[in-house]
């Protein structure tokens, strides 16, 4: 039933994005640091960030996860600079629409389109969401700190 669609789950784009691992690493003295777990598999992303007036200035992440999580983390890191709460909300909405099988209203992060096949595999959708949730959490935490 979901066989056909998810056959193409591991398209070249996802694999390459995962291997690119943009933003992988650490920040020496981050303003905030967050950790997100996927209880399904124990996958984990640790994200460190520097902020600037409610926007992200720099992020680095260590991601222990599947290709989907790693690809999403890489995309997220690519778009992190200058991101604010509205920006991550828009990206999350685009992702949720994609994962529900709908055509997103706005293509805020075009690369997210590579996750379209995940729409047919509900059990893996949290893998894709995890890195974006980490960004969202980091921004929320940043809002509560008095960073420059």
């Amino acid at each position: 039933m979901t066989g056909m669609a998810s056959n193409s789950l591991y398209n070249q784009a996802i694999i390459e994005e995962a291997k690119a691992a943009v933003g992988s690493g650490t920040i020496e003295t981050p303003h905030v640091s967050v950790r997100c777990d996927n209880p399904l598999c124990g996958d984990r992303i640790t994200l460190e960030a520097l902020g600037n007036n409610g926007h992200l200035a720099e992020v680095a992440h260590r991601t222990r996860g599947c290709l989907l999580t790693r690809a999403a983390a890489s995309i997220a890191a690519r778009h992190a600079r200058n991101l604010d709460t509205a920006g991550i909300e828009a990206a999350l909405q685009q992702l949720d629409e994609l994962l529900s099988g709908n055509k997103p209203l706005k293509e805020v992060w075009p690369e997210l389109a590579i996750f379209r096949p995940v729409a047919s595999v509900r059990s893996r959708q949290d893998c894709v969401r995890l890195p974006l949730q980490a960004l969202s959490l980091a921004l929320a935490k940043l809002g509560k700190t008095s960073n420059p």
Partner: protein
Amino acid sequence: MSSTLKKAFPIFASRTERFHYLDSAATGQICAAAAAALLGYETTARANVKRGVYPLADAASNAFDAARASIARYIGIDDANEVIFTSGTTMGLNLLAHCLTAELAPGDEILLSELEHHSNIVPWQIAAARRSLIVRAIPVKKDGTLELAAIEGLLSARTRIIAVAHTSNVTGAISDTSRIAEAARAAGAYFVLDGAQALPHGPVDLKRLGCDAFAASGHKMFSATGAGIVWMNKELAHRLPPFLSGGEMIRTVSLKGSTYAPPPHRFEAGTPPIGACLAMGAAAEWLASLDWTAIESEERRLTRRLLDGLSATAHTTVLGPAGFCHRRGIISFDVDGVHPHDLCQFLGDRGIALRGGHHCAQPLMERFNLAATTRASLALYNDDADIDALLEGLESAVRLLR
């Protein structure tokens, strides 16, 4: 109409002998939709839920969540994740008694009623003994309904929980939930509703009923044996500790200690009764599609015929409300000088299925000074032939056995 409905229940076509099933309060017959969901899952689509990623497992997890959503709609709840799957009402009431009393202090009070099923008594008694709580009970009036005038006198500043049945499994009496909800709110107590006998009689709207927690069984709403649900309001569900523990309800486990998943998973330890859960979802969908105005009026008509017929039968006394507004078609009666089990056996051998005994409601039996009653309980598949058979059979039983 019930002849069309009857076709949706495989058992009736399968019986070649006379078969008048009047024991639906003990267990309903399974509807075709539930049977198909059960069999379909168990024989051709089986995989464990919640953790697998291959297509069969993903599909099973999706079906499991869809069943949750169907049941949520049937009980008027918007967020399907507020529905917790259990193995039945009894398990659900144990869960609620355990988790809700975890927060109470010695001397706190729980208010039940005299008409409760043992499953809504004993778990509270055990919790009360463990935590030094006080259990009180709303008395029952002569007509089988709750003596709600007594409720103010029974409430105190220490009352934390009121737990009563929506519908008595002995007399069919329906509780005045809005008055109880109001009293609970005024007292700052949680209102737990035992909905085992409510769901077979049509969709409910828990928000309108005003309860904080609710338990019911699938097998009584024409689904498979082995599954049921608990609903609690979100705030409670997120606050309360787990009851059963093990696989699927944890976030992390180490030998030093463990942390728990958010609801509903926190309350669903181990492999769930997946087939029976899917069946319960299918039953809820099918039931929700029926014309309940018509079904209710038919149930009332049959109930009236049965009440009238029983009143006209020699030596026979009916328990419970005489009117039709505050009752369901669950009718207990006493035949002076004839033991309920002799009656049930005699009529059973003539194809009429009734239940005799204390119906797991000994305090109510005591209230009426009876050891046991005979009970006929109606469901949407019963018809005039069932009533005729019972009334005729009863006549001969009284003649022979008395």
